């Protein structure tokens, strides 16, 4: 080292030792003083910038209607998504399945072996087509609406409203924001926990994020809501009843988020609640173009892409399971038979559990796998109408209200998908926490559905 450099370093070191204890405080003070001086020179305030924002804040954080407003907002978003996604979903399915027809016919014309055509078009491609047509429309509706709320500055107010509950559970108010992300995708929700600085609270948020049903689990909730809850009300109120059922399932998930957070902060992750600072940003007019861009490119397309490359191999696996015969039965039927006793115990059946095992990579394919298993079809089938689905599940397979309730609970509470598990592993840097994040929800799901099914049967229900 040059003598000059050495002298400079030594001087710096000597000076550093003469710094007062609170030099960091003073540094920030001087920075702010400078900023204030500049502001005074160049910024001129007219009127009270607080007044109208304060008025809105008083409404959205009101003791009486603050929370109902929040739940109502959630319900409206679900309702718009359910009603709005219906038609484009059907249209998309029609187009994509027409492509399947064309493709398989083209293969036949080219004399490609039938088994390859079958595997690629009726296995892999059909899995893809199903996932895209079921997932894309709700995502394309849900994400922009949600991004608008985010842009408005409403979500931090939700965190503000809910913090007292999170505090009681030993968790962090910002967990509300990560849960909101979880509605779209749990893997995204797990990544979003980076906004929580305290390691303990962040782990709680990571391990419980799964209790918020993600986009991939909605089709099932919506289907069950429509089949079992909407069917018993006049047609006019069907979409409302479906919304109510989905909302109920979501609230159950939120309840378990708090319960498990509370349990974790008293057992595995014991500790004092740490600091909470949250900025409530000013309300802003949402920027429509940016919302469309971020919600579509950053979220919808990314998540869809993930679902696609998870669903394609799953589609292939289902095809193989359904087409390999042992004796007179296919592998699907044999495996479902093994799982039947366990399924029955928790109000479900073997086929549903098998569908959930196959759907570990992507929860979106639970419904098509189920239908395929039940109908004995060699490939995933699309049932034309809700009525046909109802006929299959209720009349042929003997689903009851208990099955619907148990399945909804299981769908909300069960283990996260493989992407989320991988994300937990990456974010925590620990296989152990990834295992806890996987098996804890699974145990909660089994315990809850078991208790519900047992009580239901004891009380003489189905």
């Amino acid at each position, binding site marked *: 080292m040059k003598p000059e450099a050495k002298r400079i370093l030594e001087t710096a070191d000597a000076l550093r030792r003469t710094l007062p204890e609170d030099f960091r405080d003073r540094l920030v003070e001087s920075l702010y003083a400078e900023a204030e001086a500049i502001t005074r020179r160049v910024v001129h305030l007219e009127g009270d910038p607080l007044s109208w924002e304060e008025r809105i804040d008083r409404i959205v954080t009101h003791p009486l209607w603050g929370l109902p407003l929040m739940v109502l907002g959630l319900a409206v978003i679900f309702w718009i998504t359910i009603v709005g996604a219906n038609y484009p979903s059907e249209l998309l399915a029609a187009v994509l399945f027409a492509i399947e027809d064309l493709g398989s016919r083209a293969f036949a014309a080219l004399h490609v072996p039938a088994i390859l055509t079958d595997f690629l078009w009726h296995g892999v491609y059909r899995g893809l087509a199903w996932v895209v047509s079921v997932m894309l429309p709700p995502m394309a509706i849900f994400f922009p609406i949600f991004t608008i709320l985010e842009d408005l500055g409403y979500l931090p107010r939700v965190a503000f409203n809910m913090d007292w509950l999170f505090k009681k559970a030993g968790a962090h108010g910002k967990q509300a924001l990560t849960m909101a992300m979880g509605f779209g995708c749990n893997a995204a929700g797990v990544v979003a926990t980076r906004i929580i600085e305290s390691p303990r609270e962040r782990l709680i948020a990571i391990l419980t994020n799964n209790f918020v049903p993600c986009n991939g689990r909605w089709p099932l909730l919506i289907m069950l809501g429509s089949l079992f809850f909407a069917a018993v009300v006049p047609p006019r109120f069907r979409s409302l009843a479906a919304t109510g059922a989905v909302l109920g399932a979501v609230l159950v998930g939120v309840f378990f988020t708090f319960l498990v957070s509370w349990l974790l902060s008293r057992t595995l992750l014991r*500790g004092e609640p740490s600091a909470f600072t949250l900025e409530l940003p000013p309300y802003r007019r949402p920027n429509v173009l940016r919302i469309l861009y971020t919600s579509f490119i950053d979220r919808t397309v990314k998540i869809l892409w993930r679902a696609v490359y998870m669903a394609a191999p799953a589609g292939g696996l289902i095809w193989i399971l359904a087409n390999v015969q042992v004796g007179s039965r296919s592998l699907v039927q044999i495996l479902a038979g093994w799982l039947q006793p366990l399924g029955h115990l928790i109000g479900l059946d073997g086929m549903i559990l098998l569908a959930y095992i196959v759907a570990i990579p992507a929860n979106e394919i639970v419904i098509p796998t189920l239908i395929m298993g039940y109908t004995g079809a060699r490939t995933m089938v699309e049932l034309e109408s809700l009525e046909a689905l109802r006929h299959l599940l209720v009349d042929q397979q003997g689903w009851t209200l208990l099955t619907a309730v148990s399945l909804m609970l299981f769908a909300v509470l069960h283990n996260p998908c493989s992407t989320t598990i991988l994300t937990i592993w990456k974010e925590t840097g620990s296989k152990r926490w990834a295992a806890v994040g996987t098996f804890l929800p699974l145990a909660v799901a089994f315990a809850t559905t078991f208790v519900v099914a047992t009580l239901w049967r004891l009380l003489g229900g189905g």
Partner: protein
Amino acid sequence: MNFLAAGALLALAGLAGWWLASGRQRYRARRRETLEDTLKFLAGHDAEGATVEALAGYLHLGDRTTRNLLDRLHRQGLVRLQGNRILLTPEGRRQATRILRAHRLWEFYLSYTTDLPLQDLHRLAEKQEHRLTPEQLRDLAARVGHPLRDPHGDPIPDEAGTLPLVAPGKPLTDVPAQTWVQVVHVEDEPADIFAQIVAEGIDPGTVFLVLENLPTGIHLRLDGRDLWLAPIVANNISVQVLPEAPPRPLPRKTLADIEPGTWVRVARISPRIQGLLRRRLLDLGFTRGARVKPVLRSAFGHGDPTAYWVRGSLIALRREQAREILVQEDSHETAPPA
């Protein structure tokens, strides 16, 4: 079939080898930890030396194991014996200082980057101090700005092993009645006494008035509260006597006590808040002299959290944080927000 059996055997042998190797590694790591803990203990009793019994008690080891350990240290030239007293050689002292530096730097680093409570830092540093290489230590020190003291107020040795000059303190038990003192250091062991001190709100930098000093305990006044400390607790607090009472009466009001709509000025952030949280509060604008007004109280948590208007933004704090921000009445009640 033979093929399979051979494969299985090979796999088993591999597994056993791995298990043995990792066991050996773990054993070595543990032995090093014991050695380093010994050096640390001896450094703490450098003036008069320590007895074998005291060391054995500290390490929770039997007398024979302790003697073997000392033999090894002696062979490595790290300790010397004087009568029945064990003393560190210069080389031993150098190594002990390095571990001390690792321990205190790690504590500072944790408090600088995470929200972990003060009580947890010591426990985590006890493990990490054995794992940091000299290069890592250098990086760490540079990253957190070459701190001079750890969060407990203990000096952090520099790379050469010299301790920065620290204002000489004396135990709180030696302070006469009716004196103003400032805490310079809080001993972090034993953990339960340390937790008690922290819970009372006493940290390095805290200023208070000693009212009475009796054999049964110390009576003091801190931020308007009257406290009694047992002598065993007070003995773990080192203080510096202040020549006179602080110029301004220390404010007793905190942000948590202010009614919504009232403007106040920040007097200071309690010294209890350190590291990441202190920097965050400062960055958000809670600096000395900043005008603050509580605006929005959470209706469900009965004002916990509350949102404050500070420097043109709305910041929500939980009561625990608001209670650590001391404030003064604002003399210009009607002035527009700065």
